[in-house]
């Protein structure tokens, strides 16, 4: 199972599944984070504790705890 912290800065990925409670799921959805969405990893903070993602046209930051709840797959650079 792959999570965002398995990717590198500059990698592109796709969200496969979100294993979170209803509220958090809805919250993520309102930020444009839901299964099927493609994203790019813009930055990690020290120790990959937090990540900044480009989702659609917005930048969203998540913490490790949230990354744990999101299953992703890596997209090849040519494909993305």
């Amino acid at each position, binding site marked *: 199972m792959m999570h965002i912290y398995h990717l590198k800065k500059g990698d592109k990925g796709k969200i496969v599944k979100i294993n979170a409670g*209803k509220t958090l799921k809805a*919250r993520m959805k309102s*930020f444009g984070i839901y299964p099927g969405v493609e994203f790019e990893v813009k930055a990690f903070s020290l120790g990959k504790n*937090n990540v*900044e993602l480009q989702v659609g046209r917005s930048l969203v930051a998540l913490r490790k705890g949230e990354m744990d709840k999101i299953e992703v797959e890596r997209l090849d650079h040519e494909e993305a």
Partner: protein
Amino acid sequence: MQKIVVALVGQPNVGKSSLINAISDAKLKVGNFSGVTVEKTEVVFNYCDEVKCQDYEVHIIDLPGAYSLNDYTIEERVTKNFIEKEDYDLIVNVVDATNLERNLLLTTELLETGRKMVIALNMMDEAEKEGIKIDAEQLSEILGVPCVPTSASTKEGIKALEEAIVEVYRKPTTGSKIVYSDVIEEEIAKIVKFFEEKKFTCKIPYKKVAVKLLKEDKDIYQYLHDQPIWIELLPIIREALNHIYIHYGTKDLDEIFEDERLAFARGAALEVMTVEKRKEKTLTEKIDDILINKYFGIPIFLFLMWGLFQLTFEFGAIPMDYIDQFFTALADKAKDIFGNGELGSVISDGMISGVGAVIMFLPNILILFLGIALLETTGYMSRVSFLLDGFFHKFGLHGKSFIPLVTGFGCSVPAYMAARTLKNEKDRLLTLFIIGFMSCGARLPIYVLFTAAFFAQDVAGNMLFLIYLTGAMIGLFAAKILNVLVFKGEDEPFVMEMPKYRWPSLRLLWHTVYSQALMYLQKAGTFILAASVLVWFASNYPKYPELEKAYHTKIEQTTESAKKAELEHQLQAKLLEESYLGKIGKATEPFFAPLGMDWRLSVALEAGLAAKEVVVSTMGVLYSLGETDETSEGLKNQIRKNIPLPTAIAFIVFVMIYLPCFAASAVFTREAGGVKYLVYLFIFTTTTAWVLSFIAYKLAGVFLT
């Protein structure tokens, strides 16, 4: 004149407040960070329709930014409640044209309410620069409500927006429409058909009733339950829902409709928007590459904060001398006018020296507030949350706690209020408890006074930075301890937008600094003035005529001028000791004695419970009254002469940690949700302050002497 009430709704950072500013030229705070507009603000302007000869009074209510109509944050709850329950004529939905898809999600939710609506497609100029083209007419067509392209910065489209508001107000109904997926539309059609066949009479359109039924809206069920139609309707609904459940593979209707809205918003955005692909990085991306760099990010942030404190001290010191000179001259003048009696003393030694001591620090405070406002409006504050979250989380805090905490360096009162951005009760309480450790602007005068008294000008700035840093560190450890012992439970998730970097608006910066200056001066003019007079009274009364008489005869009998001065000094010191203030200080002296503090410092600390500025003014009164010669050397020198360094350090440590002030305590009680929390806070901070102050005193005693 007809009144139109408009609810202004939009996601955070879409330029809602700037737009409202552009409409009416009203003064409003524009923020880059969610939570700046927690309170709803109202703006009124007049609109004259010349064709129809009709005047309108338009009331715009600026609702807090909401990503969706969830209960997730307090802001969203406020907005949701207003939209669903309050009385208004129409919604103006501000949409960020550079981020259409995500913004349309909220728009879709608003459309579902069935209220009249106008969409302001804001930041169109920016979107064009980013290579985004949006067909506003087509979007109006799809959503069934007028979409007006606007730009708050160039004031484009503002007039058209005003016209659209009035036009929509005049229409009897909204034309808003949402198209759901085929599966749901099919079921809706079935229910509508049934209503038509039964010729059911109902105030709201059939389609809306059908949608509400499928969403399991309680009110509509309650209403239909009492109708004869219910028995026949029930199986139809049951079948419709079953079809939907099977198709979606879930029985969670909230989630199903969420996905429906998402699909609709996506579809609409795709249809009206064309994006030119650009390879080059945007400015925000370029800046982010540096500012939130894994390795440089935190050092850059620390450097910026260090710079801010240096500026506060270095630049602030320039006007300080002039202000000091001005008030010294004013106090002398007052003595000339009112004489050396009681009246002259209360005005000169009480009011002017007390208020002057406080106003002297206005420049420092303004620079600090300017810095914080800059951090907020440029969008850097969110980056700092991102950078610091990993670190903060280790102490049980949230990256967002950074905002209230850093605001706490300015003033605890707005800081306590800023803690509302934390949704989780535990995170919020924990943050509230340690905000006081972030030394507020009002404590700055005390630090400046003491560092200037004991350190050379060139190291004083560094000492100041050290004091702030130490306070913050102690706060973090206190958070960890509280987190482990008191506040246990789930952490709030960290899902946060990083807004685009923006140039700060000069108008906003000016507004922030101006209102802060005004607030500070008002406080100085009222509260501090009263406190100064009170302290003056308490330090001058009761009178001891016999003691004075005895000393005066002694003074007259001596011929040596040095001896005379010494006797005079003894008298003043005795009188002060025997005054009310001296008595209070004496009574509490045992408590502070282990920290090396005498009754004067005890009194200053106790007065500080009312407001930290009073500490300096109290010391001003206490030490200036003890002066023997007429040429004032300033409070700074008095402190250097009267207070040993270890005691001064213990005093600063105590000031760093104990309860902020009366006003902050009141706000804390309100935000934390009860007086019992204030009692906890008082015990917690006073104990910590005393213990650490004691340790600092002992350590300083060993190492510095």
